[in-house]
């Protein structure tokens, strides 16, 4: 590759290449998949011992795939839009031949027989699977130091939590270990690490991306989604992941969209509803978070968006409904193991997963009934506006070894509403706090209108240059 690829990257900066830039560089013969993978492996060798992003690297298979991709691209045989691009996979998602441990002692020997549908789609598009990434235990118990693998750490400051439960995905993107990653989101687990690590995490509409081959946390709340360093990459990855899967009961047929199309249309005339009460009344956000949200709102208004205030149910009730449903559904999965081998869970996972034992059938059904009402309220709001703007995390990331502060700040978030309702929601960098940690913003939209959410996210990214802000590693 030339000293500068035209995108402003020197050879030593290959780890900051986005997937879109890498694909262009491959096509122009200025870079090969093998060169990129070698650079990323070297960076991971140097930095991951301090960050714990990977549970399991699959270097040999990845390099073999990169060599095949290199030869195919050189011969002009392009498999798909991600040909030769490395990707990391959260370790609750099956990759054929590798263990899916869910970061738990309970499943240390759980070898996947086949790829999850989302992984199979990545391979069809030409992506190269690098390995399995840290998570909170079963996507709920963390950050924990009593599990078989250490928790991932935040590249902006390794003394801090990278968010979760898709911790390795967020931390690895921010550290420049890979340009694309998969995460899952049941109560905010894609958007929390996106917020803590300053990357772009998108929970699509419920049913847009197949969950088949992904270890369930809560059937009616689980989403799989793209995590990236740029909005354009997020759209590119979603293009690959989206699609109806008749074997996933939650999957919905939706019109095929090309999410990357229209990203640069801007927000002129778009109606954006600002859900201020989430961070001004329901939970009082850190002043720097509140200021960052105001900056985002003013910037989008200056770009031509029409902003109005919107009122939704309170965050505490969204969270309660989310937790009652989550705990009830998770208990139905984990009860046999919690009865027989409770000692194989970490303390946080055990506490959180046993909560379902103390909920009654009526609690669960009432939560689902209240959920229907909440969906109606959000749907009504989205008839008046095109996209919602709100907080994601109310605080910058806590210190990872300060369990008390983590327990206090972890629930201070506005992500669960969109797991309860299933609307698409994206979280991304909104600024950097005085302590050097990322601040975040969230945009949500109508069912299957990921395009508008991405369009607003891109407008903010372009105005603020968030895709070029990286941790000082």
């Amino acid at each position: 590759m030339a000293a500068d690829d035209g995108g402003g990257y020197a050879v030593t900066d290959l780890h900051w290449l986005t997937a879109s830039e890498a694909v262009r560089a491959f096509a122009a013969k200025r870079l090969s998949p093998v060169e990129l993978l070698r650079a990323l492996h070297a960076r991971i060798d140097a930095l991951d011992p301090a960050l714990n992003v990977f549970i399991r690297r699959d270097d040999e298979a990845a390099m073999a795939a990169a060599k095949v991709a290199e030869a195919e691209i050189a011969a002009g045989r392009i498999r798909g839009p991600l040909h030769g691009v490395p990707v990391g996979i959260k370790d609750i998602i099956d990759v054929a031949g590798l263990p899916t441990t869910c970061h738990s002692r309970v499943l240390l020997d759980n070898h996947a027989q086949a790829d999850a549908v989302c992984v199979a789609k990545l391979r069809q598009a030409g992506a190269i699977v690098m390995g399995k990434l840290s998570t909170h235990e079963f996507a709920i118990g963390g950050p924990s130091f009593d599990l078989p693998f250490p928790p991932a750490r935040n590249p902006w400051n390794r003394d801090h939590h990278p968010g979760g439960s898709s911790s390795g995905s967020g931390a690895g993107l921010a550290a420049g270990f890979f340009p694309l990653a998969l995460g899952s989101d049941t109560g905010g687990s894609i958007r929390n690490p996106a917020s803590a690590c300053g990357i772009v995490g998108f929970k699509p509409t419920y049913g847009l991306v197949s969950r088949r081959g992904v270890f369930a946390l809560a059937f009616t709340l689980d989403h799989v989604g793209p995590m990236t360093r740029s909005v354009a990459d997020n759209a590119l990855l979603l293009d690959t992941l989206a699609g109806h899967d008749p074997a996933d009961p939650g999957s919905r047929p939706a019109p095929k969209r090309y999410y990357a199309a229209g990203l640069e249309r801007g927000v002129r005339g778009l109606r954006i509803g600002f859900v201020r009460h989430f961070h001004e009344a329901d939970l009082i956000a850190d002043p720097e978070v509140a200021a960052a949200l105001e900056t985002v709102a003013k910037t989008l208004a200056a770009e031509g968006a029409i902003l109005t205030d919107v009122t939704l149910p309170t965050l505490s009730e969204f969270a309660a409904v989310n937790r009652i449903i989550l705990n009830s559904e998770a208990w139905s999965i984990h009860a046999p193991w919690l009865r027989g081998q409770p000692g194989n869970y970490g303390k946080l996972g055990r506490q959180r997963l046993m909560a379902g034992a103390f909920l009654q059938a009526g609690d669960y059904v009432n939560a689902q009934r209240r959920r229907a009402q909440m969906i109606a309220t959000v749907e009504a709001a989205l008839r008046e506006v095109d996209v919602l703007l709100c907080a994601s995390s109310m605080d910058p990331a806590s210190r990872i070894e300060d369990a008390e502060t983590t327990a206090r700040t972890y629930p201070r978030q506005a992500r669960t509403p969109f797991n309860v309702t299933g609307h698409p929601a994206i979280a991304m960098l909104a600024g950097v706090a005085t302590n050097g940690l990322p601040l975040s913003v969230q945009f949500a939209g109508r069912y299957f209108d990921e395009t508008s959410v991405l369009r607003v996210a891109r407008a903010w990214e372009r105005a603020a240059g968030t895709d070029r802000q990286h941790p000082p590693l």
Partner: protein
Amino acid sequence: MDTTLMEKIARLAGLDKALAEFPDDVAAAFAQAGLHRGIMHAPEDPAAEPWPPMTAGDTL
């Protein structure tokens, strides 16, 4: 916290081993459940249906 109730429900749920080995964790789980139940407003309208609705036909 009603410890007697907590232990009774835990045993009914088959959590005897957890109760013996990790009593604090069982108590924390019991407290979490009660907290969330206390915050949620159950619909008063008897006609309010749950989500997702039962749908007949070839949806599976």
